[in-house]
């Protein structure tokens, strides 16, 4: 016989909550804020990559300022650009690297981590709908990614405007702002959505991270090389190449195009948008499918398994899977 309980019940003075509750439509904002806060918590998840983005901004800004009048040409002498104009589009490559790191340390872990730790039950036993969850997680990732992919290029665009010596130069440089915003938003969208979709495909964080890394690095390198060899659109399937190709086109930079030089602009843009669209569709489908599955214990498949276990063993209960 067990000993009588010796625990004390503490109560700080309970009162029923009589205030208003926030609308169900705002739940995604709570999830978004939590996503940003948890990303910010440890240095290696986000701050290290943000540091790389800040460093990129300083170096590109420094090059822009110190070598602003230096003109660089290609070997044939066909294309030329000042370093002040080339620094921003060339820096996109480095922002992309920082964004990939964040996508690996946060993006690819988010949904898989929630499934692994049972947090889906935590969310969906409350008044959180699948679309609130998807919006919140996406919003959080967009917020984090924007600090890298959008804030950096925008800062450089503003710096480029600051280097204008005449009003005419300033006015002529003004289109850099919307272009920097456009490439920043595109990069943010892609690096927020695609890793999340990979994350939603697995209930194991390591698998999700590995598959996303393999897709981005290995598959990306393969299609990029194929694109270079064939000179066709296939290189646009590599997200980094596609993003660079769009940046080079937007900023009208024909120098230093490298692997992005062989990829048509429209194919690159289409690839980025299709990637984001498919990623959102996968994410929504997976979350919708998981909605409710965690609440109440075992699912039907688990119950069937349990019934077979109890029938085989002749025991009355299956402690592994109560319903």
């Amino acid at each position: 016989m067990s000993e009588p309980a010796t625990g004390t019940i503490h109560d700080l003075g309970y009162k029923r909550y009589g205030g208003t509750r926030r609308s169900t439509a705002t739940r995604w904002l709570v999830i978004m804020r939590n996503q940003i806060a948890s990303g910010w918590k440890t240095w290696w998840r986000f701050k290290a990559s943000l540091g790389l983005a800040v460093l990129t901004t300083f170096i590109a800004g420094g090059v822009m300022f110190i070598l602003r009048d230096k003109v660089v040409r290609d070997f044939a002498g066909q294309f030329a650009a000042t370093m002040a104009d080339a620094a921003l589009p060339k820096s996109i490559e480095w922002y992309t690297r920082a964004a990939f790191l964040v996508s690996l340390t946060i993006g690819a872990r988010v949904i898989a981590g929630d499934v692994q730790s049972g947090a889906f039950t935590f969310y969906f036993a409350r008044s959180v709908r699948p679309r609130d969850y998807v919006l919140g997680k996406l919003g959080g990732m967009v917020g984090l990614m924007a600090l890298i992919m959008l804030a950096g290029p925008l800062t450089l665009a503003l710096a480029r405007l600051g280097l204008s010596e005449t009003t005419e130069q300033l006015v002529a440089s003004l289109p850099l702002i919307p272009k920097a915003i456009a490439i920043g938003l595109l990069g943010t969208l892609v690096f927020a959505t695609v890793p999340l979709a990979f994350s939603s495909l697995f209930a194991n964080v390591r698998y999700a991270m590995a598959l996303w890394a393999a897709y981005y690095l290995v598959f990306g390198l393969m299609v990029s090389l194929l694109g270079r060899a064939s000179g066709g659109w296939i290189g646009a399937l590599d997200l980094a190449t596609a993003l660079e190709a769009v940046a080079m086109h937007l900023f009208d930079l024909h120098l230093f195009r490298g692997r992005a030089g062989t990829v048509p602009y429209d194919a690159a843009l289409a690839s980025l948008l299709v990637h984001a669209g498919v990623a959102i569709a996968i994410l929504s489908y997976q979350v919708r499918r998981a909605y409710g599955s965690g609440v109440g214990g075992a699912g039907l498949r688990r119950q069937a398994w349990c019934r077979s276990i109890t029938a085989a063993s002749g025991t009355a209960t299956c402690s592994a899977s109560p319903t």
Partner: protein
Amino acid sequence: MSLIELAKLTKRYGAITALAGLDGTIDGKIIGLLGPNGAGKSTLLKALLGLIPFAGKASVLGLDAGTKGAEIRDRVGYMPEQEQFIVGMSAVELCTYAGELSGLPRTEAMQRAHAALYYAGLEEKRYQPIEGYSTGMKQRVKLAQALVHDPELLFLDEPTNGLDPRSRDEMLELIIDLPGRRNCAIVLSTHLLPDVERICDHAVIMHQGRIRFVGSIDELRGARGRDTEILVEVKADAAKLAEVMTAAGATCQVMSPVSIAVSLPESATNELVFRHARAAGLQIRGLGVRRETVEAAFLRVIGEVPAPAADGAVPP
């Protein structure tokens, strides 16, 4: 208004009927939801929380589960059996987040998170990451996160699973304390029938997708819980007492050489036993109302006869 009302509630997964037209009204302070694996308890919980579509009607706290699932979940707390934590969060962060997700403003959610965790007995440990908690502490966090948004109804799924006897007692004490202190009703889904016997006042028994019983624990024990069914202990020769009592119109069952179970005639009282024992020269050592255990009643309701004890006597 009843806590839960069901009318022809049906849920099918392809060819499998998980809930087969459930009807009934469920009320009480602490209600035990019982049933073997595959009985449909999980599906019923999901339907009541508005997480799955179903046919028929179900309402919780007067709200239609088919159309107002989100509103129900704002007013209901759910403590799952399995772990449901967010990696890297402390208990107080998790509970604050839970409160916010249920619509509480951040400041209110934080205050209530501290109060709920303190109530659950976590005290200073509430600031530590949950990954490092023991099973008992995790169970307490799960209870606290279910309480934080001030629910009117709590669904507790196996709340004492994996706990040592002392932690189990403490958890049951907390659960018993809740309806009075927090003015909320509790639906307790568990396999541990002694827990139900100890803390529940009502029970719902499900089997093969149907509700086999809804009512109070006393009603569950049924006819065997009546005061006219008594267990008599004698110094010796219980069989002789059975003989004279049978002659007096009672139904007797010899449980052992020194005890018999007696079903008295409707109008009779215990006095009948004393009178016949004295006449037969037998000494009565003990006499008590024979109560059927919840476990025995459960097995009876789902149609499985309790196994006989080793000495051949039928357990009460």
